[in-house]
């Protein structure tokens, strides 16, 4: 008797979907973050490049396509962070016995951050 189907079948796991989110988040973070961080973290504050005026940036940020793109960037980046940082802690610091607690903390942070991102991008601006 195999027990491979029906109610006695193998338990479904969310793991593949988390890995999918991790990969997608890794790609969008790698594509978008260096350029944006260079501009807003160094080039504008240090005066290397004049920062854009408020009217232009407001028009860009509040455009519907930008809001959706930023939400995607935030949510996928946070899933990437949560999954990777979970394994950094459990493997890097040998904390595997606290995996459930660490997973709750990292994925919980990603969930709260994603909700906050949705609120900021679609209700607060």
């Amino acid at each position, binding site marked *: 008797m195999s027990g491979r189907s029906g109610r006695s079948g193998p338990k479904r796991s969310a793991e593949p979907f988390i890995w999918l989110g991790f990969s997608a*988040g*890794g*790609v969008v*973070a*790698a*594509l*978008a*973050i*260096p*350029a*944006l*961080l*260079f*501009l*807003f*973290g*160094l080039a*504008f*504050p*240090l005066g290397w*490049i004049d*920062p*854009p005026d*408020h009217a*232009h*940036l*407001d028009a*860009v*940020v*509040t455009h519907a396509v930008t809001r959706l793109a*930023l939400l995607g*960037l*935030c949510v996928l*980046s*946070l899933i*990437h*962070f949560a999954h*990777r*940082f979970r*394994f*950094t802690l459990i493997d*890097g*610091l*040998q904390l595997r016995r606290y995996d459930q607690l660490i997973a709750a903390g990292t994925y919980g*942070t990603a969930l709260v*951050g994603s909700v*906050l*991102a949705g609120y*900021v*991008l679609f209700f*607060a*601006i």
Partner: protein
Amino acid sequence: MSTSTDPGFQARLYRPPVPRFWWARRRSYLLFILRELSSLFVAWFVAYLLVLAYAVGQSESAYQRFLDWSANPFMIALNAVALGFAVLHAVTFFQAAPQATVVRLRGRRVPPTLLAGPIFAAWVVVSGFLIWLVVLA
């Protein structure tokens, strides 16, 4: 007798003890853990981006306060470190992606080295587009 088919059976594997700071022993291990730690700075960027978007959406004076806050030496140092980790993340992720992605052309696998070029080219194009959108458009 307990066997592996018994519900109560639990295999007890020998796990050799691993020092907590094992990654400090070799340069390659240290690079690995630094690459993994880049995820923290990905999360920091999301927070920074949301503060920026919120400030821009509020008013011109809130945007100016954000610019003043981002010019604080501590913030510049933090963002310089974050940028270093973001670039480390991007380079290592784009190097690893072709190894993990199997693309077949006429039944043969495209060599990973051939996939790396378009991926890095996409990074340049997306970065150029973002800089154009923010600064030049």
